[in-house]
């Protein structure tokens, strides 16, 4: 998805050491959803995806002076933020002051929610407490919609509870009408992002007496990628049928628990359209691990900038 790259902004603060303001912003799909369609950034198998909660645990920003990595500056606060409620210009959450002028490498983390995490006002107290109790990095809820949609849970795990199938998929799993499938997924996806770069330039340059601004950007659609792209996402397809097929009890809602029960081996959708060889987690022993692996790739820098992981 395209997102407007936020260039490093600069304002004159007078003479002296430099400051860096670090914002978090959400890829537009987190707020706007992903439409079904044939365009390369749409969901190719007919599902419209919308998110109503997209919590992320993020922080531990660190700068390393490019010319001397021993010179570092950090902002250790870890926030839990609901990205569906982040304003379009992003949220400024960290400030690093007293910086030496020069170019700095930029690093940050999406850790498991620690006990001392800070609740952003976009997150309700009970939701925040659950994130911390579960030590999740992400908690993502939303819906898949498709008027002709169906769920085809793997035969060996399905508990249809009397539901009548309306056909079967290519693997012979029974399918059931499912125009709406809710999902509610929590996962630990602890990741160190950095050094980060954008347009071939590493990190950020700060100048004496000025305040620079950079953004941590969290992408929202990697859950639906058909692989683990490193760099250009342009050739990646978005597919959502696999998630609809994870509704084992056909109650219209896919849960974290259901994902944990399903091996990718039994999902018919994980066919030759998927290239899983770049997964950041191996082995991929369950769909919960798969979701965590995809979530581990979502951290970016300044829009589409990349960070080593």
């Amino acid at each position, binding site marked *: 998805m395209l997102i407007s790259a936020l260039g490093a902004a600069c304002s004159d603060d007078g003479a002296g050491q430099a400051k860096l303001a670090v914002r978090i912003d959400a890829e537009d799909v987190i707020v706007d959803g992903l439409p079904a369609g044939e365009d390369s950034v749409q969901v190719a198998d007919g599902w419209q995806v919308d998110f109503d909660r997209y919590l992320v645990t993020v922080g531990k920003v660190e700068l390393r002076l490019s010319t001397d990595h021993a010179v570092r500056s950090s902002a250790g606060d870890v926030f839990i933020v609901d990205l569906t409620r982040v304003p379009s210009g992003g949220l400024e959450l960290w400030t690093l002051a007293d910086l030496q002028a020069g170019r700095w490498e930029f690093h940050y983390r999406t850790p498991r929610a620690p006990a001392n995490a800070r609740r952003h006002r976009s997150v309700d107290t009970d939701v925040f407490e659950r994130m911390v109790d579960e030590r999740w990095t992400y908690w993502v809820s939303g819906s898949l919609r498709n008027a002709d949609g169906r769920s085809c849970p793997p035969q060996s795990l399905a508990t249809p509870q009397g539901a009548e199938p309306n056909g079967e998929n290519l693997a012979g799993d029974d399918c059931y009408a499912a125009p709406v499938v809710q999902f509610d997924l929590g996962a630990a996806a602890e990741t160190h992002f950095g050094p980060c770069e954008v347009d071939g330039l590493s990190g950020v340059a700060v100048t004496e007496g000025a305040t620079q601004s950079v953004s941590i950007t969290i992408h929202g659609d990697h859950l639906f990628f058909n692989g683990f792209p490193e760099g250009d996402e342009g050739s990646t397809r978005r597919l959502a049928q696999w998630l609809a097929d994870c509704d084992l009890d056909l109650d219209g809602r896919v849960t974290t628990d259901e994902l944990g029960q399903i*091996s990718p081996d039994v999902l018919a959708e994980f066919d*030759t359209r998927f290239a899983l060889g770049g997964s950041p987690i191996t082995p991929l022993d369950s769909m919960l691990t798969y979701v965590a692996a995809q979530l581990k790739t979502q951290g970016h820098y300044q829009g589409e900038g990349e960070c080593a992981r």
Partner: protein
Amino acid sequence: VACGGETGQQPVSIPLHVAGSETNEPLLGANGVTLDIERALLAFGPLVLCAGRQAGDACETARLEWLGSTVIDVMDPEPKRAGVLVGVSGHVASWMYDLGITSQLSDPEPHFLEAAAELGGHSLVIEGVAHVGEAPVPFAARVIVAQGDQGERGLPIVRKSQTDDFEHDVTDKDTGLLIRFDPTQWLAGVDFSRLVVEPEQGCSGSECGQSATITPPSQAYNSIRNALQVGARPRFEWRQ
């Protein structure tokens, strides 16, 4: 091979060996179905070792590479020389490889190297007998593992993950790298009970028993293909 600006780097050429693994116990399919493997051949290569901890596009300073391919009998634990890794000394922290079929930035079609051509255009050929119920069921799988037309063109298909351990300082004292594949888990997700094809009515003779052919699209094919990409990793053993 692109080289970083580090000082003290030396050109190195390191023999590359490959091997399968000894499997003392029968392999298992899903639900504990026992398998006798008669033939298990894997096309392997090319291989790139990178300085950074993340392979793929982030591998801007490839240390070592071998652009060839070879067929590995993965049931044979005896090392076999595959070729020579060429590059420069220094730290390596990630790897990426193909299984005999490469993707080029400039060409949408996959390129079948010699090893895959030897296997009829496949990355893996595995044949044997599955003991499903009372009767032995011969099975055969021919699997292609390659970047598809919607994959990441130009990138090797299997890449080190963050959870894989791999670190080494390459020096001119390294006398070889052995990569050992273990096929034990490759068929562990295959539900052979769903594959058995009964013989046609009126059929007779020794060629007329049940059989199982693993082809796409099927759960069995996807399971093997995924196991080769994100299942058990090969072991990298440096020799000095």
